[in-house]
């Protein structure tokens, strides 16, 4: 089914936010917002959920900590116990203090890199990807709200456009998506 997309352009983040509030209260579903910087407070209005990246970072950190612990125990205790000045090296606990720095570093390493990779994949932003912003100015000083007709069956295209015109837009554009 052919889907029509309406792009409404604003020149101010607060005007867009107020506009989105107005539209949503009338029952319009806003598909997306493109902006040159994070608009604080827009997410709950247009129904974007808080990301779960933080949980991922925590899990990656735990994996890193486990790997470091298992690795160092194997290297230093099981496989080749070193006699350093006659200090005990029979169990992991005996030597644990000197393993703390690397355990910490490896935890941070895994958490940071794991999270960054997840972030890039989740965003579909990888080297060589094509940008999908509707107008090049949205990375400069313009803010674009995207409405889809398939999300808003109860309204006709003209109705949607009329509603948008009442929210202080500066440009309006329509596109067909097959």
């Amino acid at each position: 089914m052919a889907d029509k997309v309406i792009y409404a352009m604003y020149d101010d983040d607060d005007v867009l936010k107020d506009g989105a509030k107005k539209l949503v209260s009338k029952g319009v579903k806003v598909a997306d917002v493109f902006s040159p910087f994070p608009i604080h407070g827009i997410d709950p209005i247009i129904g974007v959920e808080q990301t779960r990246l933080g949980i991922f970072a925590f899990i990656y950190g735990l994996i890193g900590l486990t790997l470091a612990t298992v690795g160092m125990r194997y290297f230093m205790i099981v496989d080749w116990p070193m006699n350093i000045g006659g200090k005990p090296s029979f169990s992991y606990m005996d030597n644990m203090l000197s393993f703390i720095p690397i355990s910490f570093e490896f935890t941070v390493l895994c958490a940071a890199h794991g999270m960054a990779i997840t972030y890039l994949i989740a965003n579909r932003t990888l080297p060589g990807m094509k940008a999908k912003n509707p107008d090049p100015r949205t990375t400069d000083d313009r803010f674009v709200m995207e409405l889809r007709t398939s999300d808003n069956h109860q309204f006709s295209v003209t109705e949607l456009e009329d509603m948008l015109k009442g929210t202080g837009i500066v440009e309006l554009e329509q596109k067909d998506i097959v």
Partner: protein
Amino acid sequence: MHKEAAIREPLILGHKTYHDITEDVCKPIEDKAPKTWYILFGIALIIGLYGVGCILYLLGTGVGVWGLNKTIGWAWDITNFVWWVGIGHAGTLISAVLLLFRQKWRMAINRSAEAMTIFAVFMAGLFPLIHMGRLWLGYWVLPLPNHFGSLWVNFNSPLLWDVFAISTYLSVSFVFWYIGLIPDFATIRDRAKKPLSKKMYSILSFGWSGRAKHWNRFELISLVLAGLATPLVFSVHSIVSFDFATSVIPGWHTTIFPPYFVAGAVFSGFAMVQTLLLIMRKAMHLEAYIHTKHVEYMNIVIMVTGSIVGTAYITELFISWYSGVEYEAYAFINRATGPYWWAYAAMMTCNVVSPQLMWFKKLRRSLLFTFFISIVVNIGMWFERYVIIVTSLHRDYLPSSWSMHYPSHIDIGVYMGTIGLFFVFFLLFARFFPVLALNELKTILKSSGESYKNGDAGHHPTSAPVVEAKKEETPAVETTTTETASNTNDLLSIVGTVSSDKADDLKAITGVGPVLETALNEIGIYSYEQISKMTKREYDIMDEMTGKSAGKAEKDDWAGQAKELMNKSNNQ
């Protein structure tokens, strides 16, 4: 929208719009590079290549070409390593620690400070690698199964901790930096006209399109990476200090080393940021974004960390005597009065005396003076590492092994070479990368931009009235009256209005005299009740309006006093 106290100095000067910020940052990238850029780049490249030549000569001949000897096995190499790592710390401190503390002034400087971090840590990493002698076997520091049987690297050794710390630090800083760069590369991509630069920046920007969900993730990942980088930055220099502190050399074997090294690292790093940014803001015309207030904030950090370093020096001296350990005491007496007294004196004057000058507001707001001090601090911090390393080693336990260190020209060449390479990287960064964090600066324009704070900008950042406002200079007097009026309303809306016939005796509050009472009455403050509702924000507005007693109200806790007086009068 986030509101900021009116008395805070604006962070973005002039009548800037979102588009102006983009223009100001992208122009230097899109225009042809000025002649001075080519000259500086050429000089840096020649010095850098000379350094590379010295390194190649060293690799071909052996570490013996350095001025090291049997007694002094570490000298310029490790001095330079610690110096560069230390410089790196400021970038992470600015971008991570200040992010956690929600310091907005960091946004103008974090991008370039972080670039500085990455390049500095890169230079630092070179030294241990060269010091290995056989660079191509450098991967042996990793725990890899090898052909010597199952012999692993020693995980008890601080030198191995260093390998993990520095490589984690370098790669995590890079990731943090790059994630912030992606949206700004997208801005340049969308403005680019030449096909080649369009292609390059679209690869670099990873197809960023700025969707709401992406920004949501972006904000979270910035926060979490900052949370991870903050303990990381403290751990890295602590571990660097363990290289010394876990040994049994007098002068190294002290528990004060980790905090003292971290403070010293931040101290030297901020000095380097000042050196670079004071030049960059002029050369790239970014005076509206990086101005005196930013420099002052950084100078305060220099002052604080410099004082910590000074305290550590003196504590070290005291403890060497108080411990009663002869070796330790001798190490410090020898530092101050031995053959390396000049290095010790240089370190003491540059690092202990010079930051104390920042207590004077005039000096810490002077750009020329700041530039001078930043160079002095960089020199001083290099000498600090030299003093710690060389003077502790040159007096061995056996007097027959006592020795002096004289740098060879290869020592000097490698060091100068890393400075050259550092500037090669930094100049390339300044030429092709957005040197200010565009997306972050735009978020603070409305709360900390000058035109928005004064209220003389239109509601729309891009609307025509802004341009008109630029032409028509409003008379200064008029602005202040309107400002005062709005401040009064602001203040009274919080503390409430009271008519003058219900006036209390405000003089009963410690710190309020008859003059101040009249001034307060003029604003509309008559009763204890009003004062009791005041917080820091209202104090600030009040201080600004009465023009007196800055900070006095907070110090004397007027609100608390007023509450007590209210209770008293109620009980009577």
